[in-house]
């Protein structure tokens, strides 16, 4: 056991993977000499050299496109987008190229690349540097999507992503980099594509991912003091999606809250809610409730920013009311 930050766990995953597999290299803006805008790759340039930590010009579409070509040529690129907000600039290379090459070309070749990036609120970074755009990725067939919430998962999911045969978009949360946890990196971990049940509870289940896992856990602890027991599911990967774990808990509790930091409309929470309604309808005591980001851009103002996404307090309040509705019925 050792205490480690989310940031260092990511770095350790890159280090271990690069040591094992010579074909892995990292490319992106400021990933080498600078050590990454959020310090994830700090030190790796000195360890692995300029050939394996490629500092690129500010040319996002070409960064992602070059990763596609390298992946088709026997290498395993880890391309980095400094902010997920820039994904729109690269969406052709990601959505029309990386995601479709295996299919369009009749299964001749895959694109085993990882696109590492980070998103979310928490730094007063404003409308163009604070978004949660995972739905863009989840909506695109052919792309895998991982969003680690814990330090251990930062390590294990990145290692697993680097063993996938298909393109993986790996979205970190900017507010988690400094988070520390005791981790044992050699302990058994949930396999790729399996959700983690962070907490059991029979009154309702909260389904979430990324930073909101921590908010949900905080809310669940407060709820517990009031006699309400909430299960918390951390999806870990959104594609593949572990719907079986969700189903099991829905059947057990009959009450479901889906939590996401992204704008509510047509987001990941909408997909999850729709699927739970469709497939678990008979088990639901009340409608699935989405607690998600407001349908607005993120402001630079600290107050507006913090209140435009779910907070532990909101999750707790809504959970309490959900349980009360059931009891009243």
């Amino acid at each position, binding site marked *: 056991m050792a205490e480690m930050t989310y940031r260092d766990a990511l770095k350790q995953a890159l280090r271990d993977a690069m040591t094992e597999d010579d074909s892995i290299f990292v490319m992106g*803006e*400021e990933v080498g*000499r*600078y050590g990454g*805008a959020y310090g994830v790759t700090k030190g790796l340039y000195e360890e692995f050299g300029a050939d394996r930590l490629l*500092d690129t*010009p*500010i*040319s996002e*579409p*070409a960064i992602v496109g070059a990763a596609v070509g390298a992946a088709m040529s026997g290498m395993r690129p880890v391309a980095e987008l400094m902010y997920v*907000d*820039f994904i729109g*600039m690269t969406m052709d290379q990601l959505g029309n190229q990386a995601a479709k090459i295996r299919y369009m070309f009749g299964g001749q070749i895959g694109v085993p690349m990882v696109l590492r990036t980070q998103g979310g609120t928490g*730094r*007063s*970074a*404003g*409308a*163009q*540097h604070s978004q949660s755009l995972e739905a863009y990725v989840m909506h695109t067939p052919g792309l895998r999507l991982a969003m680690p919430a814990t330090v251990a998962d930062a390590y294990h999911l990145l290692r697993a992503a680097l063993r996938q045969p298909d393109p993986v978009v790996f979205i970190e949360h900017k507010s988690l980099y400094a988070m520390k946890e005791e981790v044992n990196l050699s302990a058994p971990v949930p396999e790729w594509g399996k959700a983690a049940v962070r907490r059991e509870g029979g009154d309702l289940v909260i389904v979430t991912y990324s930073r909101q896992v921590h908010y949900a856990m905080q809310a669940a602890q407060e709820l517990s003091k009031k006699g309400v027991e909430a299960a918390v599911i951390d999806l870990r990967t959104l594609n593949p999606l572990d719907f079986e774990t969700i189903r099991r808990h829905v059947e057990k509790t009959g009450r479901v809250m889906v939590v996401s930091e992204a704008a*509510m409309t047509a987001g990941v929470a909408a997909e999850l809610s729709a699927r739970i309604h469709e497939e678990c309808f008979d088990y639901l005591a*009340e*409608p699935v*409730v*989405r*607690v*998600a*980001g*407001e*349908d*607005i*851009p993120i*402001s*630079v*103002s*600290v*107050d*507006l920013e913090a*209140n*435009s996404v*779910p907070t532990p307090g*909101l999750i707790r309040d*809504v959970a309490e*009311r*959900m349980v*009360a*509705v059931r009891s*009243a*019925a």
Partner: protein
Amino acid sequence: MTQDVNMAAPAAAASGSNTELLPMYRDMRRVRSFEERVGELFVRGQSAGSMLHLSIGEESAAVGVASLMRKGDTFTTHHRGHGIFLARGADPNRMMAEIAGKESGYCHGKGGSMHIADMGLGHLGANAIVGGGIPAVVGAGLASKRAGRGDVSIAFFGDGAMQQGILYESMNMAALWDLPVMFVCINNQYGMGTRIEQATRGVELHQRARALGLRGETVDGLDVRDVREVAQDLIDGGRAGNPAFLAIDCYRFFGHARMDKSPYRSEEDETQGRAKDPVKFARQALLDGGADEAELAALDGEISAEMDATIDFAVAATPPPLTSMFRDVYASDQPEPEPVRTRIDRILAVE
């Protein structure tokens, strides 16, 4: 307080060649002082976040070009655009309030340092996407050409944006359609920790514009008069439908944003780079031209006091009310997005 950048200089200090330089010195000094206060606002924990990019060292680019703009002209800036906006006549109080994320800021605390704008001054917006503000000037140029007013639209961006494809798409269209547009690259030698030579083999930036049929020049940013002279010629051409590109060589005096201590560059690099100080240079030129040290010191003091007040203004200003978060997603006569809480209330309403 909104100042016209072309306002006449204090008569006493303005003699001979100093007449042209003094107002530009004053504007550059105001930019420098303002940026220093932005740094202070951050240190005092009163800024909205740390993503504040100071334009210290780039004052001649801001003032040399902005002092040539007139009513009707439009412009976009990058993330390091405080100086350009201030040089164009922005109110430093409202700027600082915006940087603090306050209601009385230019964008009501929603945009912040990297997304500040003022349509009244033709500022079509600062941008946190490298290259993001460039193509808008092509559209503004089209509108100006259609209106036949001779208004020019200017995109300001850093050397980092020289490697974004959208710049070349934009310059090509501007040239193809003879638009009243200008592209101004403020080459401060760095994009975060990457020196320009580490980002491209083609460091003769203006050549790229020439290859596309624009007029293209590079000017040293030490002497604001040089910047203004070259820019004048290019802007005049721009107004007549000959789009142009201008690279202005300068140095980013401090770290990329407030958290960056520039560990990737040497002290020697910084000492050498900071020798290219357009504010200091202009001040010395004024003295050499016969200006009175005491009068310059008085002017500096006045500016200092003006800029000190921006901090007080921003700190005293109130944050935007929470309900304002739903405003301006769409036009004001349209319904605002429904809050998540309202939607949840409806679901959980017990009959």
